[in-house]
Protein backbone atom coordinates (compact mmCIF):
# COMPACT_ATOMS: atom_id res chain seq x y z
CA UNK A 1 0.00 0.00 0.00
CA UNK A 2 2.86 2.35 0.77
CA UNK A 3 3.91 2.05 -2.83
CA UNK A 4 0.66 3.45 -4.22
CA UNK A 5 0.76 6.20 -1.58
CA UNK A 6 4.22 7.17 -2.73
CA UNK A 7 3.06 7.24 -6.32
CA UNK A 8 0.06 9.34 -5.37
CA UNK A 9 2.27 11.87 -3.59
CA UNK A 10 4.58 11.95 -6.60
CA UNK A 11 1.68 12.44 -8.98
CA UNK A 12 0.24 15.26 -6.86
CA UNK A 13 3.64 16.89 -6.76
CA UNK A 14 3.98 16.58 -10.55
CA UNK A 15 0.49 18.01 -11.05
CA UNK A 16 1.27 20.90 -8.72
CA UNK A 17 4.51 21.65 -10.57
CA UNK A 18 2.86 21.50 -13.98
CA UNK A 19 -0.03 23.61 -12.72
CA UNK A 20 2.24 26.31 -11.32
CA UNK A 21 4.37 26.49 -14.46
CA UNK A 22 1.28 26.53 -16.67
CA UNK A 23 -0.27 29.25 -14.50
CA UNK A 24 2.78 31.49 -14.71
CA UNK A 25 3.28 31.03 -18.45
CA UNK A 26 -0.41 31.52 -19.24
CA UNK A 27 -0.78 34.65 -17.18
CA UNK A 28 2.38 36.33 -18.39
CA UNK A 29 1.23 35.61 -21.94
CA UNK A 30 -2.21 37.09 -21.30
CA UNK A 31 -1.34 40.02 -19.05
CA UNK A 32 2.17 40.97 -20.17
CA UNK A 33 2.69 44.00 -22.44
CA UNK A 34 3.73 43.15 -25.98
CA UNK A 35 5.82 45.66 -27.87
CA UNK A 36 7.73 44.12 -30.79
CA UNK A 37 10.66 45.83 -32.43
CA UNK A 38 13.64 44.78 -34.51
CA UNK A 39 16.08 45.55 -31.72
CA UNK A 40 14.15 43.38 -29.32
CA UNK A 41 14.43 40.32 -31.58
CA UNK A 42 18.20 40.50 -31.65
CA UNK A 43 20.12 38.01 -29.54
CA UNK A 44 21.31 39.68 -26.36
CA UNK A 45 25.02 39.92 -25.87
CA UNK A 46 26.16 42.03 -22.94
CA UNK A 47 24.31 45.05 -24.27
CA UNK A 48 26.72 45.52 -27.16
CA UNK A 49 25.16 45.72 -30.62
CA UNK A 50 25.92 42.64 -32.72
CA UNK A 51 28.54 43.25 -35.37
CA UNK A 52 28.42 39.90 -37.17
CA UNK A 53 26.01 37.02 -36.91
CA UNK A 54 27.43 34.37 -34.61
CA UNK A 55 28.55 31.24 -36.39
CA UNK A 56 32.00 30.33 -35.24
CA UNK A 57 33.72 27.12 -34.34
CA UNK A 58 35.23 26.51 -30.96
CA UNK A 59 38.75 25.32 -31.11
CA UNK A 60 38.98 21.69 -30.04
CA UNK A 61 41.69 22.79 -27.60
CA UNK A 62 39.02 24.10 -25.24
CA UNK A 63 37.55 20.61 -25.02
CA UNK A 64 40.94 19.13 -24.31
CA UNK A 65 41.51 21.58 -21.48
CA UNK A 66 38.04 20.84 -20.12
CA UNK A 67 38.77 17.11 -20.21
CA UNK A 68 42.05 17.59 -18.39
CA UNK A 69 40.23 19.68 -15.83
CA UNK A 70 37.82 16.78 -15.32
CA UNK A 71 40.77 14.52 -14.61
CA UNK A 72 41.80 16.65 -11.63
CA UNK A 73 38.23 17.34 -10.65
CA UNK A 74 37.46 13.65 -10.26
CA UNK A 75 40.73 13.11 -8.47
CA UNK A 76 39.75 15.71 -5.88
CA UNK A 77 36.24 14.28 -5.60
CA UNK A 78 37.76 10.96 -4.56
CA UNK A 79 40.47 12.45 -2.38
CA UNK A 80 38.07 14.30 -0.08
CA UNK A 81 36.16 11.29 1.28
CA UNK A 82 39.45 9.43 1.52
CA UNK A 83 40.96 12.22 3.59
CA UNK A 84 38.03 12.31 6.02
CA UNK A 85 38.33 8.62 6.92
CA UNK A 86 42.07 8.38 6.37
CA UNK A 87 42.85 7.14 9.87
CA UNK A 88 40.35 4.31 9.95
CA UNK A 89 41.51 3.04 6.55
CA UNK A 90 45.07 2.62 7.77
CA UNK A 91 48.02 1.65 5.64
CA UNK A 92 45.87 -0.25 3.14
CA UNK A 93 43.85 2.86 2.29
CA UNK A 94 47.04 4.89 2.01
CA UNK A 95 48.61 2.53 -0.51
CA UNK A 96 45.34 2.05 -2.37
CA UNK A 97 44.93 5.80 -2.82
CA UNK A 98 48.43 6.09 -4.20
CA UNK A 99 47.64 3.34 -6.70
CA UNK A 100 44.61 5.39 -7.73
CA UNK A 101 46.71 8.54 -8.01
CA UNK A 102 49.27 6.67 -10.10
CA UNK A 103 46.55 5.60 -12.52
CA UNK A 104 45.20 9.15 -12.76
CA UNK A 105 48.68 10.61 -13.21
CA UNK A 106 49.45 8.09 -15.94
CA UNK A 107 46.47 9.56 -17.78
CA UNK A 108 47.97 13.01 -17.37
CA UNK A 109 51.37 11.77 -18.56
CA UNK A 110 49.70 10.35 -21.64
CA UNK A 111 47.92 13.64 -22.38
CA UNK A 112 51.08 15.63 -21.75
CA UNK A 113 53.22 13.48 -24.00
CA UNK A 114 50.53 13.59 -26.69
CA UNK A 115 50.81 17.38 -26.65
CA UNK A 116 47.39 18.14 -25.19
CA UNK A 117 48.90 20.85 -22.98
CA UNK A 118 50.43 22.80 -25.85
CA UNK A 119 48.25 25.60 -27.05
CA UNK A 120 49.75 26.03 -30.53
Amino acid sequence: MSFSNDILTLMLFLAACAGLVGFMLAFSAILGPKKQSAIKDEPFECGIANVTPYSGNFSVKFYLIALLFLLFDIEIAFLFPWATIFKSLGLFGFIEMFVFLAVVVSGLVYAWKKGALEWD
Partner: protein
Amino acid sequence: MSDISFSAILPELILCIFGILVMVLGPFLGRNSRSFGGTLALLGFATSIVGALLVPESAGKLFFNGMVTTDAFSIFFRVLFAAIGVVMTLGSLNYLHRLKLPTFEYFALLLFASAGMNFMVLSTDLLLTFIGLEILSIATYVLAGIRRDDAASNESAIKYFFMGSFSSAILLYGVALIYGSAHSTSYQAILKHAAAVNGQQQIPLLFLIGFGLIIVGFCFKVAVVPFQVWAPDVYEGAPTPITGFLSVASKMAGFAALIRILFQVLPHDLPQWVQLLVVSSILTMWIGNLSALTQTNIKRMLAYSSIAHAGYILIGIVAANQTGITAILYYAVAYALMNLGAFTIITILSGRDDRRVTLEDYKGIGFQYPQLSFPLTICLISLAGIPTTAGFIGKFFLFSAAVEEKMYLLAVLAVLAALVSVYYYLRVVVYMFMFEPDGKREVRIHPAAGVVVLVCCLLIFWFGLFPTWLLEVSRQAVILFLHP
Protein backbone atom coordinates in the same frame (compact mmCIF):
# COMPACT_ATOMS: atom_id res chain seq x y z
CA MET B 1 37.20 -5.44 4.74
CA SER B 2 38.66 -8.92 5.04
CA ASP B 3 37.08 -10.13 1.83
CA ILE B 4 39.35 -8.02 -0.34
CA SER B 5 41.10 -10.60 -2.45
CA PHE B 6 43.17 -9.48 -5.37
CA SER B 7 43.52 -13.02 -6.65
CA ALA B 8 39.75 -12.98 -7.31
CA ILE B 9 40.20 -10.24 -9.90
CA LEU B 10 43.67 -11.22 -11.09
CA PRO B 11 42.82 -11.34 -14.84
CA GLU B 12 41.17 -7.92 -14.68
CA LEU B 13 44.15 -6.40 -12.86
CA ILE B 14 46.43 -7.83 -15.52
CA LEU B 15 44.30 -6.41 -18.31
CA CYS B 16 44.12 -2.96 -16.69
CA ILE B 17 47.85 -2.82 -15.95
CA PHE B 18 48.71 -3.83 -19.50
CA GLY B 19 46.14 -1.36 -20.83
CA ILE B 20 47.72 1.52 -18.90
CA LEU B 21 51.21 0.38 -19.91
CA VAL B 22 50.32 0.24 -23.61
CA MET B 23 48.59 3.62 -23.42
CA VAL B 24 51.37 5.47 -21.60
CA LEU B 25 54.28 3.82 -23.41
CA GLY B 26 52.71 4.62 -26.78
CA PRO B 27 53.55 8.32 -27.00
CA PHE B 28 57.02 7.72 -25.56
CA LEU B 29 57.96 5.08 -28.09
CA GLY B 30 56.54 6.91 -31.08
CA ARG B 31 55.51 5.73 -34.47
CA ASN B 32 58.50 3.62 -35.39
CA SER B 33 57.76 0.90 -32.85
CA ARG B 34 54.17 0.18 -33.86
CA SER B 35 54.33 -3.57 -33.49
CA PHE B 36 55.44 -3.18 -29.86
CA GLY B 37 51.93 -2.20 -28.78
CA GLY B 38 50.53 -5.35 -30.38
CA THR B 39 53.17 -7.52 -28.72
CA LEU B 40 52.44 -6.00 -25.34
CA ALA B 41 48.68 -6.40 -25.81
CA LEU B 42 49.17 -10.01 -26.87
CA LEU B 43 51.25 -10.62 -23.76
CA GLY B 44 48.52 -8.95 -21.66
CA PHE B 45 45.73 -11.10 -23.06
CA ALA B 46 47.80 -14.28 -22.80
CA THR B 47 48.71 -13.52 -19.17
CA SER B 48 45.06 -12.78 -18.50
CA ILE B 49 44.09 -16.26 -19.72
CA VAL B 50 46.63 -17.75 -17.32
CA GLY B 51 45.38 -15.44 -14.58
CA ALA B 52 41.77 -16.49 -15.16
CA LEU B 53 42.76 -20.15 -14.91
CA LEU B 54 44.64 -19.45 -11.68
CA VAL B 55 41.67 -17.74 -10.02
CA PRO B 56 40.55 -20.00 -7.17
CA GLU B 57 37.12 -21.19 -8.22
CA SER B 58 34.43 -21.07 -5.56
CA ALA B 59 30.72 -20.78 -6.19
CA GLY B 60 29.55 -19.73 -2.75
CA LYS B 61 32.13 -17.22 -1.62
CA LEU B 62 31.89 -13.56 -2.61
CA PHE B 63 34.60 -10.93 -2.43
CA PHE B 64 34.77 -7.13 -2.14
CA ASN B 65 31.66 -6.73 0.03
CA GLY B 66 29.66 -9.27 -1.94
CA MET B 67 30.35 -7.68 -5.32
CA VAL B 68 32.68 -10.17 -6.95
CA THR B 69 32.25 -13.87 -7.53
CA THR B 70 34.77 -16.38 -8.78
CA ASP B 71 32.33 -19.08 -9.85
CA ALA B 72 32.89 -21.35 -12.84
CA PHE B 73 30.55 -19.28 -15.00
CA SER B 74 32.65 -16.14 -14.57
CA ILE B 75 35.89 -18.03 -15.16
CA PHE B 76 34.51 -19.57 -18.36
CA PHE B 77 33.76 -16.15 -19.79
CA ARG B 78 36.94 -14.55 -18.48
CA VAL B 79 38.99 -17.15 -20.36
CA LEU B 80 36.80 -16.73 -23.44
CA PHE B 81 37.13 -12.93 -23.46
CA ALA B 82 40.89 -13.03 -23.04
CA ALA B 83 41.08 -15.58 -25.88
CA ILE B 84 38.97 -13.27 -28.03
CA GLY B 85 41.47 -10.55 -27.15
CA VAL B 86 44.33 -12.71 -28.41
CA VAL B 87 42.47 -13.38 -31.65
CA MET B 88 41.60 -9.69 -32.08
CA THR B 89 45.21 -8.62 -31.49
CA LEU B 90 46.65 -11.08 -33.99
CA GLY B 91 43.90 -10.45 -36.51
CA SER B 92 44.15 -6.67 -36.54
CA LEU B 93 47.93 -6.10 -36.40
CA ASN B 94 48.32 -5.84 -40.15
CA TYR B 95 45.05 -3.94 -40.57
CA LEU B 96 46.25 -1.17 -38.26
CA HIS B 97 49.49 -1.02 -40.18
CA ARG B 98 47.73 -0.85 -43.52
CA LEU B 99 45.33 1.92 -42.54
CA LYS B 100 47.93 3.81 -40.47
CA LEU B 101 45.75 3.78 -37.36
CA PRO B 102 47.01 4.64 -33.87
CA THR B 103 48.22 1.23 -32.70
CA PHE B 104 48.83 1.91 -29.04
CA GLU B 105 45.47 3.55 -28.43
CA TYR B 106 43.71 0.75 -30.29
CA PHE B 107 45.26 -1.99 -28.17
CA ALA B 108 44.93 -0.05 -24.92
CA LEU B 109 41.21 0.39 -25.59
CA LEU B 110 40.89 -3.28 -26.50
CA LEU B 111 42.49 -4.25 -23.18
CA PHE B 112 40.23 -1.87 -21.25
CA ALA B 113 37.16 -3.18 -23.09
CA SER B 114 38.12 -6.72 -22.11
CA ALA B 115 38.51 -5.69 -18.48
CA GLY B 116 35.05 -4.14 -18.63
CA MET B 117 33.55 -7.34 -20.04
CA ASN B 118 35.22 -9.36 -17.31
CA PHE B 119 33.71 -7.11 -14.65
CA MET B 120 30.31 -7.65 -16.22
CA VAL B 121 30.51 -11.41 -15.84
CA LEU B 122 32.12 -11.59 -12.40
CA SER B 123 29.90 -8.99 -10.79
CA THR B 124 27.19 -9.90 -8.30
CA ASP B 125 26.08 -6.33 -7.81
CA LEU B 126 24.07 -4.24 -10.21
CA LEU B 127 26.37 -1.26 -9.82
CA LEU B 128 29.52 -3.19 -10.63
CA THR B 129 27.74 -4.75 -13.61
CA PHE B 130 26.84 -1.28 -14.79
CA ILE B 131 30.39 0.02 -14.33
CA GLY B 132 31.76 -2.95 -16.28
CA LEU B 133 29.25 -2.27 -19.03
CA GLU B 134 30.33 1.37 -19.18
CA ILE B 135 34.03 0.52 -19.29
CA LEU B 136 33.27 -1.77 -22.23
CA SER B 137 30.94 0.70 -23.93
CA ILE B 138 33.14 3.79 -23.70
CA ALA B 139 36.13 1.86 -25.03
CA THR B 140 34.09 0.50 -27.94
CA TYR B 141 32.58 3.90 -28.81
CA VAL B 142 36.10 5.15 -29.39
CA LEU B 143 37.17 1.98 -31.20
CA ALA B 144 34.21 2.25 -33.59
CA GLY B 145 35.35 5.76 -34.52
CA ILE B 146 39.10 5.17 -34.49
CA ARG B 147 39.29 5.92 -38.23
CA ARG B 148 38.93 9.61 -37.59
CA ASP B 149 39.21 10.71 -41.22
CA ASP B 150 36.54 8.28 -42.42
CA ALA B 151 32.95 9.53 -42.50
CA ALA B 152 31.37 6.08 -42.13
CA SER B 153 33.48 5.28 -39.08
CA ASN B 154 32.52 8.60 -37.47
CA GLU B 155 28.85 8.00 -38.21
CA SER B 156 29.10 4.56 -36.70
CA ALA B 157 30.78 5.85 -33.56
CA ILE B 158 28.31 8.67 -32.99
CA LYS B 159 25.31 6.39 -33.56
CA TYR B 160 26.75 3.78 -31.26
CA PHE B 161 27.48 6.43 -28.66
CA PHE B 162 23.95 7.81 -28.69
CA MET B 163 22.20 4.46 -28.68
CA GLY B 164 24.61 3.14 -26.09
CA SER B 165 24.14 6.10 -23.77
CA PHE B 166 20.40 5.85 -24.21
CA SER B 167 20.34 2.17 -23.28
CA SER B 168 22.72 2.75 -20.37
CA ALA B 169 20.35 5.37 -19.04
CA ILE B 170 17.41 2.96 -19.28
CA LEU B 171 19.44 0.28 -17.52
CA LEU B 172 20.49 2.66 -14.78
CA TYR B 173 16.92 3.79 -14.26
CA GLY B 174 15.99 0.14 -13.80
CA VAL B 175 18.79 -0.25 -11.26
CA ALA B 176 17.47 2.79 -9.38
CA LEU B 177 13.94 1.36 -9.24
CA ILE B 178 15.24 -2.01 -8.04
CA TYR B 179 17.22 -0.20 -5.36
CA GLY B 180 14.08 1.64 -4.38
CA SER B 181 12.25 -1.63 -4.04
CA ALA B 182 14.86 -3.96 -2.55
CA HIS B 183 17.01 -1.31 -0.76
CA SER B 184 20.14 -2.89 -2.14
CA THR B 185 21.94 -3.40 -5.43
CA SER B 186 23.56 -6.69 -4.47
CA TYR B 187 22.20 -9.75 -6.24
CA GLN B 188 21.88 -11.73 -3.02
CA ALA B 189 19.84 -9.04 -1.29
CA ILE B 190 17.62 -8.55 -4.33
CA LEU B 191 17.00 -12.30 -4.59
CA LYS B 192 16.06 -12.38 -0.92
CA HIS B 193 13.71 -9.46 -1.41
CA ALA B 194 12.21 -11.03 -4.53
CA ALA B 195 11.62 -14.31 -2.72
CA ALA B 196 9.92 -12.44 0.11
CA VAL B 197 7.58 -10.47 -2.11
CA ASN B 198 6.88 -13.47 -4.32
CA GLY B 199 4.96 -15.05 -1.48
CA GLN B 200 2.56 -12.14 -1.44
CA GLN B 201 -0.39 -11.81 -3.75
CA GLN B 202 1.14 -9.19 -5.96
CA ILE B 203 4.72 -8.45 -6.90
CA PRO B 204 5.34 -4.75 -6.40
CA LEU B 205 5.08 -2.74 -9.59
CA LEU B 206 8.28 -0.89 -8.78
CA PHE B 207 10.23 -4.16 -8.76
CA LEU B 208 8.71 -5.41 -12.00
CA ILE B 209 9.27 -2.13 -13.85
CA GLY B 210 12.83 -2.02 -12.58
CA PHE B 211 13.52 -5.47 -13.92
CA GLY B 212 11.77 -4.70 -17.16
CA LEU B 213 14.02 -1.68 -17.68
CA ILE B 214 17.16 -3.67 -16.88
CA ILE B 215 16.17 -6.35 -19.39
CA VAL B 216 15.42 -3.68 -22.00
CA GLY B 217 18.81 -2.09 -21.35
CA PHE B 218 20.58 -5.37 -21.97
CA CYS B 219 18.40 -6.11 -25.00
CA PHE B 220 19.72 -2.87 -26.51
CA LYS B 221 23.30 -3.95 -25.87
CA VAL B 222 22.91 -7.39 -27.39
CA ALA B 223 20.73 -6.01 -30.22
CA VAL B 224 17.59 -8.12 -30.12
CA VAL B 225 14.32 -7.03 -31.69
CA PRO B 226 12.80 -4.48 -31.08
CA PHE B 227 16.04 -2.83 -29.94
CA GLN B 228 18.23 -3.85 -32.87
CA VAL B 229 17.95 -0.92 -35.29
CA TRP B 230 21.30 0.60 -34.41
CA ALA B 231 23.30 -2.55 -35.08
CA PRO B 232 23.53 -2.67 -38.91
CA ASP B 233 24.64 0.96 -39.30
CA VAL B 234 27.17 0.72 -36.49
CA TYR B 235 28.57 -2.61 -37.69
CA GLU B 236 28.84 -1.42 -41.28
CA GLY B 237 30.71 1.78 -40.49
CA ALA B 238 33.06 0.53 -37.77
CA PRO B 239 36.56 -0.67 -38.75
CA THR B 240 36.21 -4.31 -39.82
CA PRO B 241 38.06 -5.97 -36.90
CA ILE B 242 36.05 -3.85 -34.49
CA THR B 243 32.84 -4.98 -36.17
CA GLY B 244 33.93 -8.51 -35.33
CA PHE B 245 34.65 -7.51 -31.76
CA LEU B 246 31.29 -5.77 -31.34
CA SER B 247 29.33 -8.63 -32.83
CA VAL B 248 31.08 -11.28 -30.73
CA ALA B 249 32.63 -10.01 -27.53
CA SER B 250 30.39 -7.20 -26.40
CA LYS B 251 27.33 -9.24 -27.35
CA MET B 252 28.51 -12.24 -25.34
CA ALA B 253 29.32 -10.04 -22.34
CA GLY B 254 25.79 -8.64 -22.49
CA PHE B 255 24.29 -12.12 -22.66
CA ALA B 256 26.46 -13.40 -19.81
CA ALA B 257 25.42 -10.53 -17.53
CA LEU B 258 21.80 -10.97 -18.57
CA ILE B 259 21.91 -14.71 -17.82
CA ARG B 260 23.33 -14.06 -14.38
CA ILE B 261 20.64 -11.49 -13.63
CA LEU B 262 17.78 -13.61 -14.97
CA PHE B 263 18.82 -16.84 -13.27
CA GLN B 264 20.53 -15.67 -10.12
CA VAL B 265 18.46 -12.65 -9.16
CA LEU B 266 14.96 -13.13 -10.45
CA PRO B 267 12.79 -15.57 -8.56
CA HIS B 268 12.41 -18.70 -10.65
CA ASP B 269 8.65 -18.74 -10.71
CA LEU B 270 8.30 -15.28 -12.16
CA PRO B 271 7.07 -16.10 -15.63
CA GLN B 272 6.38 -12.59 -16.92
CA TRP B 273 9.70 -12.12 -18.66
CA VAL B 274 9.62 -15.52 -20.37
CA GLN B 275 6.71 -14.75 -22.69
CA LEU B 276 8.23 -11.40 -23.62
CA LEU B 277 11.55 -12.96 -24.47
CA VAL B 278 9.92 -15.77 -26.48
CA VAL B 279 8.25 -13.22 -28.75
CA SER B 280 11.46 -11.21 -28.91
CA SER B 281 13.45 -14.33 -29.79
CA ILE B 282 11.18 -15.28 -32.68
CA LEU B 283 11.12 -11.74 -34.05
CA THR B 284 14.88 -11.41 -33.68
CA MET B 285 15.57 -14.59 -35.65
CA TRP B 286 13.15 -13.75 -38.42
CA ILE B 287 13.82 -10.04 -38.82
CA GLY B 288 17.58 -10.65 -38.65
CA ASN B 289 17.56 -13.42 -41.23
CA LEU B 290 15.02 -11.87 -43.61
CA SER B 291 16.85 -8.53 -43.61
CA ALA B 292 20.17 -10.25 -44.26
CA LEU B 293 18.77 -11.84 -47.46
CA THR B 294 18.91 -8.62 -49.47
CA GLN B 295 22.21 -7.19 -48.24
CA THR B 296 25.04 -6.64 -50.71
CA ASN B 297 27.56 -5.44 -48.14
CA ILE B 298 29.18 -8.35 -46.31
CA LYS B 299 29.64 -6.44 -43.07
CA ARG B 300 26.01 -5.36 -43.08
CA MET B 301 24.92 -8.90 -43.91
CA LEU B 302 26.91 -10.28 -40.98
CA ALA B 303 25.41 -7.56 -38.80
CA TYR B 304 21.93 -8.86 -39.54
CA SER B 305 23.23 -12.40 -39.15
CA SER B 306 24.53 -11.50 -35.70
CA ILE B 307 21.09 -10.15 -34.81
CA ALA B 308 19.62 -13.50 -35.86
CA HIS B 309 22.19 -15.33 -33.75
CA ALA B 310 21.17 -13.28 -30.73
CA GLY B 311 17.69 -14.67 -31.36
CA TYR B 312 18.99 -18.25 -31.30
CA ILE B 313 20.78 -17.59 -28.02
CA LEU B 314 17.57 -16.18 -26.53
CA ILE B 315 15.98 -19.61 -27.10
CA GLY B 316 18.42 -21.05 -24.58
CA ILE B 317 17.51 -18.33 -22.11
CA VAL B 318 13.75 -18.79 -22.37
CA ALA B 319 14.01 -22.58 -22.26
CA ALA B 320 15.92 -22.06 -18.97
CA ASN B 321 16.85 -25.73 -18.59
CA GLN B 322 20.22 -27.39 -18.36
CA THR B 323 20.44 -28.10 -22.09
CA GLY B 324 19.57 -24.51 -22.90
CA ILE B 325 22.05 -22.68 -20.70
CA THR B 326 24.81 -25.16 -21.43
CA ALA B 327 24.16 -24.69 -25.14
CA ILE B 328 24.43 -20.90 -24.77
CA LEU B 329 27.96 -21.22 -23.40
CA TYR B 330 28.88 -23.74 -26.08
CA TYR B 331 27.38 -21.47 -28.70
CA ALA B 332 29.26 -18.46 -27.33
CA VAL B 333 32.54 -20.25 -28.09
CA ALA B 334 31.36 -21.57 -31.46
CA TYR B 335 29.96 -18.19 -32.49
CA ALA B 336 33.17 -16.44 -31.42
CA LEU B 337 35.22 -18.87 -33.55
CA MET B 338 33.14 -18.63 -36.70
CA ASN B 339 32.40 -14.90 -36.57
CA LEU B 340 35.92 -13.84 -35.63
CA GLY B 341 37.28 -16.19 -38.29
CA ALA B 342 34.98 -14.66 -40.90
CA PHE B 343 35.77 -11.10 -39.86
CA THR B 344 39.52 -11.75 -39.86
CA ILE B 345 39.25 -12.95 -43.47
CA ILE B 346 37.06 -9.98 -44.40
CA THR B 347 39.66 -7.72 -42.79
CA ILE B 348 42.42 -9.27 -44.89
CA LEU B 349 40.35 -8.82 -48.05
CA SER B 350 39.09 -5.34 -47.21
CA GLY B 351 41.82 -3.58 -49.17
CA ARG B 352 43.81 -0.42 -48.59
CA ASP B 353 40.88 1.70 -47.38
CA ASP B 354 38.68 -0.97 -45.77
CA ARG B 355 36.09 -0.52 -48.54
CA ARG B 356 36.22 -3.79 -50.47
CA VAL B 357 33.44 -5.38 -48.50
CA THR B 358 30.62 -5.76 -51.02
CA LEU B 359 29.56 -9.00 -52.64
CA GLU B 360 30.93 -7.71 -55.97
CA ASP B 361 34.39 -7.58 -54.43
CA TYR B 362 34.18 -11.29 -53.63
CA LYS B 363 33.51 -12.30 -57.23
CA GLY B 364 35.85 -15.02 -58.31
CA ILE B 365 38.30 -14.88 -55.44
CA GLY B 366 37.51 -18.52 -54.74
CA PHE B 367 40.26 -19.98 -56.87
CA GLN B 368 42.39 -16.84 -56.84
CA TYR B 369 42.94 -17.01 -53.10
CA PRO B 370 41.92 -20.49 -51.97
CA GLN B 371 43.82 -19.97 -48.71
CA LEU B 372 41.21 -17.33 -47.84
CA SER B 373 38.08 -18.48 -49.62
CA PHE B 374 38.04 -22.00 -48.17
CA PRO B 375 38.33 -20.84 -44.54
CA LEU B 376 35.65 -18.20 -45.19
CA THR B 377 33.42 -20.94 -46.59
CA ILE B 378 34.00 -23.00 -43.46
CA CYS B 379 33.09 -20.08 -41.20
CA LEU B 380 29.97 -19.33 -43.24
CA ILE B 381 28.67 -22.91 -43.34
CA SER B 382 29.25 -23.07 -39.60
CA LEU B 383 27.24 -19.86 -39.17
CA ALA B 384 24.53 -21.45 -41.31
CA GLY B 385 24.59 -24.47 -39.02
CA ILE B 386 25.54 -27.25 -41.42
CA PRO B 387 26.51 -30.55 -39.73
CA THR B 388 30.11 -31.42 -38.77
CA THR B 389 30.66 -27.78 -37.72
CA ALA B 390 30.47 -26.27 -34.25
CA GLY B 391 27.64 -24.00 -35.35
CA PHE B 392 25.47 -27.04 -36.01
CA ILE B 393 26.01 -28.59 -32.58
CA GLY B 394 25.28 -25.28 -30.88
CA LYS B 395 22.05 -24.74 -32.80
CA PHE B 396 21.04 -28.37 -32.29
CA PHE B 397 21.28 -28.11 -28.51
CA LEU B 398 19.65 -24.68 -28.38
CA PHE B 399 16.68 -25.92 -30.40
CA SER B 400 16.39 -29.18 -28.51
CA ALA B 401 16.30 -27.17 -25.27
CA ALA B 402 13.13 -25.54 -26.57
CA VAL B 403 11.70 -28.96 -27.50
CA GLU B 404 12.47 -30.26 -23.99
CA GLU B 405 10.34 -27.46 -22.57
CA LYS B 406 7.54 -28.30 -25.03
CA MET B 407 7.98 -24.99 -26.85
CA TYR B 408 7.35 -26.66 -30.18
CA LEU B 409 6.29 -23.55 -32.09
CA LEU B 410 9.45 -21.73 -31.02
CA ALA B 411 11.62 -24.66 -32.10
CA VAL B 412 9.91 -25.02 -35.49
CA LEU B 413 10.15 -21.30 -36.21
CA ALA B 414 13.81 -21.35 -35.19
CA VAL B 415 14.63 -24.23 -37.54
CA LEU B 416 12.82 -22.50 -40.40
CA ALA B 417 14.68 -19.25 -39.70
CA ALA B 418 17.97 -21.14 -39.74
CA LEU B 419 17.00 -22.65 -43.10
CA VAL B 420 16.34 -19.18 -44.51
CA SER B 421 19.77 -18.08 -43.35
CA VAL B 422 21.51 -20.75 -45.42
CA TYR B 423 20.63 -18.79 -48.56
CA TYR B 424 22.59 -15.66 -47.77
CA TYR B 425 25.59 -17.43 -46.29
CA LEU B 426 25.92 -19.65 -49.32
CA ARG B 427 25.38 -16.72 -51.69
CA VAL B 428 28.79 -15.42 -50.64
CA VAL B 429 30.25 -18.84 -51.45
CA VAL B 430 28.53 -18.77 -54.84
CA TYR B 431 29.98 -15.33 -55.56
CA MET B 432 33.44 -16.55 -54.61
CA PHE B 433 33.50 -19.74 -56.65
CA MET B 434 31.03 -19.38 -59.52
CA PHE B 435 31.84 -15.94 -60.91
CA GLU B 436 34.76 -14.72 -62.94
CA PRO B 437 37.11 -12.37 -61.09
CA ASP B 438 36.97 -8.69 -62.08
CA GLY B 439 40.70 -8.41 -62.18
CA LYS B 440 43.86 -9.08 -60.30
CA ARG B 441 44.07 -7.66 -56.83
CA GLU B 442 46.79 -7.42 -54.29
CA VAL B 443 46.06 -9.35 -51.11
CA ARG B 444 48.74 -9.85 -48.53
CA ILE B 445 48.15 -12.28 -45.72
CA HIS B 446 49.99 -11.40 -42.56
CA PRO B 447 51.21 -14.58 -40.82
CA ALA B 448 49.53 -13.58 -37.53
CA ALA B 449 46.13 -13.23 -39.21
CA GLY B 450 46.78 -16.45 -41.13
CA VAL B 451 47.36 -18.34 -37.89
CA VAL B 452 44.11 -16.91 -36.46
CA VAL B 453 42.12 -18.04 -39.49
CA LEU B 454 43.69 -21.50 -39.44
CA VAL B 455 43.08 -22.01 -35.72
CA CYS B 456 39.48 -20.78 -35.98
CA CYS B 457 38.71 -23.19 -38.82
CA LEU B 458 40.36 -26.16 -37.12
CA LEU B 459 38.52 -25.47 -33.87
CA ILE B 460 35.19 -25.10 -35.70
CA PHE B 461 35.59 -28.66 -36.95
CA TRP B 462 37.15 -29.93 -33.72
CA PHE B 463 34.26 -28.69 -31.59
CA GLY B 464 31.81 -29.76 -34.28
CA LEU B 465 33.07 -33.36 -34.40
CA PHE B 466 34.12 -33.79 -30.76
CA PRO B 467 31.83 -31.48 -28.78
CA THR B 468 31.91 -33.53 -25.56
CA TRP B 469 34.74 -31.70 -23.81
CA LEU B 470 33.40 -28.20 -24.44
CA LEU B 471 29.85 -29.24 -23.56
CA GLU B 472 31.09 -30.70 -20.29
CA VAL B 473 33.02 -27.53 -19.44
CA SER B 474 29.94 -25.46 -20.27
CA ARG B 475 27.77 -27.71 -18.14
CA GLN B 476 30.14 -27.34 -15.18
CA ALA B 477 30.03 -23.57 -15.62
CA VAL B 478 26.24 -23.28 -15.50
CA ILE B 479 25.54 -25.75 -12.70
CA LEU B 480 25.05 -22.89 -10.26
CA PHE B 481 22.08 -21.58 -12.24
CA LEU B 482 20.17 -24.85 -12.19
CA HIS B 483 17.65 -25.41 -9.49
CA PRO B 484 16.72 -28.86 -8.29
